[in-house]
């Protein structure tokens, strides 16, 4: 009986407890520090100071599309105009108008020769509307493809509130 018991009891078990402790600690650490990072992207704007003045005065050959954005007191978008065309607050109309004008000018041109868009926004207008307008004029996403419309974007001089 005694001998039998001994041979039966020798069972080499790995000590799991400490490993699981550590593994769970690691897991908790990684979960706590985990942050879902949204992908970020950029809109390129090349805006040298001197050239800006030249462009607005001595270069009438450039097709400048002016997007005027008016805001209400809280920074919300009140209405938009593309050159003289009223667009209300509908960004898809802005895109349609830009597509129309770019096509009239012979399709999108890449690089320095393309049409230029000037964003003229009220001082208080919330930045998200400006970005929305910029993304509407820079291109259009159809499925996976992105169609470029206007490459050159600049800001009009700041409209300081009086």
């Amino acid at each position, binding site marked *: 009986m005694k001998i039998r018991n001994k041979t039966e009891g020798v069972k080499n*078990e790995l000590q*799991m407890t400490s*490993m*699981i402790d550590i*593994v*769970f600690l*690691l*897991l908790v650490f*990684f*979960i706590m*520090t*985990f*942050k879902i*990072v*949204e*992908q*970020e*992207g*950029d*809109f*390129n*704007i*090349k*805006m*040298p*100071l001197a050239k*800006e003045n030249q462009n607005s005065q001595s270069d009438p050959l450039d097709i400048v599309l002016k997007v005027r*954005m008016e805001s209400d007191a809280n*920074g919300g978008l009140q209405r938009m105009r593309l050159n003289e065309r009223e667009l209300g607050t509908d960004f898809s109309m802005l895109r349609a108008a830009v597509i129309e004008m770019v096509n009239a000018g012979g399709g999108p041109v890449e690089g320095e020769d393309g049409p230029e868009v000037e964003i003229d*926004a*009220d*001082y*208080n*207008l*919330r*930045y*998200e*509307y*400006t*970005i*929305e307008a*910029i*993304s509407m004029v*820079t*291109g259009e*996403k159809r499925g996976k493809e*992105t169609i470029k419309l206007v490459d050159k974007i600049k*800001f009009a*001089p*700041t*409209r*300081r*509130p009086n």
Partner: protein
Amino acid sequence: MRVKSAKPEIVEGDLTPMIDMTFQLIAFFMVLINFSQTEANERVQLPSSELARPPEGEIESPIIIHVASDGTAIIGTEEFSVDTLRPILSRELSVLKADGKTAEDANIIIRAHKDAATGKAQEIISVCQEVGFENFLLRAKEQL
């Protein structure tokens, strides 16, 4: 005999699947944690745009300016207003020049809060222009 052998039995669950899963989870989080960005600022919530694509390649000499919702400019950890921004930008410019670069090589990354006033961002851009910078990147988060 029968009664005796049934008594001292220790019931042990099989830990293998759990450990497998736990290791997988750890591996998953470890891989993802590397993507966390150091350039983010908790005061800035970027506007979203469907056309915002992550930049291809590295941006040359980036200077990141965060614009909080009240219009405060943040570079690194320091806060500036539009009027106090010029000295630090001039300092950045002299650092660039010491590296043999010009202001035209630098890229100013504007990370403005979505509720910030456009005018504030524009003022910050014009201060940068006056210092000599001319390449600006307006950052937005990708809309899925």
